[in-house]
């Protein structure tokens, strides 16, 4: 028994060359184009990128919840405990969802079923995965509610009787109810106001320490990354363009896109300075640019960037980047702004 528990928390999740496409009537939307990720036990990985970069799609692939049709997982492998999740049947997946891997969804307003009491919604997963009867599961659900700071008496209430922040805490309680070994948090604080954001993050950090849960934190907020993550993957147009630990990414930024993200942040020390947003928009995923997908927006881009796709350049044991500037080409980047 003990070894089984130990094994549960020893494992890692590993994504290899994941490709996810959405087929519409006339187009193929390439949402994820060969993503590689690895999360070690007890560690938190930040998955950062703009809206539409493929972060949520990557996360949903782990749970095999990509809506099909239109979405299909075209290629790749996702292993948990060394088992390929894509080999499992739907029934076997149901034993993993909510139990070994669970997810906190982006929008708490729509993530809870409006006609089922909050307590029941938490108890449901517990009842399925822990072989408890209904009243035992309900009791556990009440404990979960208290854990996320909601009085247990409110378990019989419906989602519309809760505020947004409380709903998000209920969503978190659902996700944590079976002590998952991997918790995917998809922008868990985006829908919340700042004071509640801090509370929710604190809560998640505490729980991670208590249960040694691995986490994938999907966000576009670099502040949250700095606060809770151990490693960061920067995602752009369905690919990881830079990956490293916090120090690599924050102190030793390499990819022009990552640099752009940092430049887009307001600078509190220089309040008069203008924001420097990345120019242009995320490319149309049905029609990705040739070569490096970021080159139309990249201030360092050279001709070669529109012709050749960059490959992974390993900069250190922990840090890699996917940019032609690090592949002995004519493209030059000089730490923070200079061209050539």
């Amino acid at each position, binding site marked *: 028994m003990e070894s089984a528990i130990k094994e549960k928390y020893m494992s890692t999740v590993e994504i290899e060359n994941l490709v996810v496409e959405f087929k519409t009537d006339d187009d193929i939307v390439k949402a994820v184009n060969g993503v590689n990720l690895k999360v070690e036990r007890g560690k938190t990985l930040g998955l950062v990128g703009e809206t539409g970069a493929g972060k949520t799609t990557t996360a949903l692939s782990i*749970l095999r*919840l990509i*809506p099909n*049709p239109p979405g299909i997982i075209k290629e790749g492998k996702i292993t948990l405990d060394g088992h390929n999740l894509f080999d499992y049947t*739907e*029934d076997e*997946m*149901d*034993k*993993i*969802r*909510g*139990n070994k891997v*669970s*997810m906190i*969804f982006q*929008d708490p307003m*729509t*993530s*809870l*079923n*409006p*006609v*089922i009491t909050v307590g029941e*919604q938490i108890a*449901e*997963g517990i009842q*399925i*995965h822990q072989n408890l009867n209904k009243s035992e599961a309900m009791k556990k659900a009440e404990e979960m509610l208290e854990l996320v700071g909601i009085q247990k008496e409110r378990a019989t209430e*419906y989602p*519309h*009787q809760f505020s947004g922040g409380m709903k998000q805490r209920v*969503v978190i309680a*659902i996700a944590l109810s079976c002590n998952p070994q991997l918790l995917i948090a998809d922008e868990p604080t985006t829908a919340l106001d700042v004071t509640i954001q801090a509370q929710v993050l604190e809560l998640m950090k505490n729980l991670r320490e208590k249960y040694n849960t691995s986490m994938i934190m999907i966000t576009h907020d670099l502040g949250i990354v700095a606060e809770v993550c151990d490693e960061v993957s920067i995602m752009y147009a369905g690919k990881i363009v830079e990956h490293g630990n916090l120090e690599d990414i924050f102190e030793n930024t390499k990819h022009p896109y990552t640099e752009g993200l940092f430049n887009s942040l307001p600078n509190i020390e220089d309040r008069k300075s203008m924001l420097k947003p990345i120019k242009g928009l995320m490319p149309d995923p049905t029609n990705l640019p040739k070569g490096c997908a970021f080159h139309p927006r990249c201030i360092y881009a050279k001709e070669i960037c529109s012709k050749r796709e960059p490959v992974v350049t390993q900069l250190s044991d922990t840090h890699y980047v996917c940019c032609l500037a690090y592949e002995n080409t004519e493209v030059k980047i000089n730490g923070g702004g200079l061209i050539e």
Partner: protein
Amino acid sequence: MFKYILKRFLMVIPVIIGVSFLVYFIISLTPGDPVKMMLGEEASEESIQEVRDELGLDKPIIVQYFKYISKLVRGDLGVSYRSKRPVLGEIVARFPITLKLTFWSMLVAIIIAVPLGIISATKQYTLTDSICSVAALIGAAVPNFWYGLMLIIWFSLGLGWFPSGGYEGIKSMVLPSITLGTTAAAIITRMTRSSMLEVVRQDYIRTAKAKGVNKKVVIRKHALRNALIPIVTVVGLQFGHMLGGMVLTETVFSIPGMGRLMVDSIKSKDTPMVLGCIITLATVFSLVNLCIDILYAFIDPRIKSVYK
């Protein structure tokens, strides 16, 4: 909740007044003289005048109407011109047959429609879905009376399984219930399908799946209840539609229900009977819709909280 029900209950009154007003005037505008129909073409001018006086038909229509309403308030629906018997008695005798038929038809409709709609939605764009959609389209397009006649030809005259008409127990209800039920089923199927399709795309369905809830349970427990409001609404509306459809179906299957009573009364310009029938139908329809509104509260707790 109780206050809400009471309020809605009181709203039935203006509905009845409005309906009776409209019907009274429409009947008075139709050609033909009820007294002549009662007494026959050869009746003398004096006897006609005598009956007119007796029935108050020589007074202005508005006066007649108010007289009718003041009696209605006291629960008096008047006396049939044709049979000379109280309208209320005849309706009480015949309406239960119609109501029973409506009930069975609705049962047939729901039993066919809801599962078909769910299957269509969960298997969207597959062959199963297309077959269900085409079947529903045919069901909605085929006229009731023709369909009823076809059923009589096949199952009654051909196979001899069910009586072709009349009202003798449950067996005589089968063909008319199927006739009325399948038409309603067609519409309820479409509504169930579209409502389910909308619900299964919601985030909370994804949340349920992410909890590891079995797909079938997700549909049954999480999706169906949320999809139910539009379905229940359409069931309520179809109920009214069915009561109207009775006129044809009861004629085709020669069932002595209120639909036929109404047709016969209209033909003979039996104003009190027509009014009595229509007011009964309007009241029942209003009450059914009230029940549907109350049902909403039990389906969706958000609506319940608004009713308070």
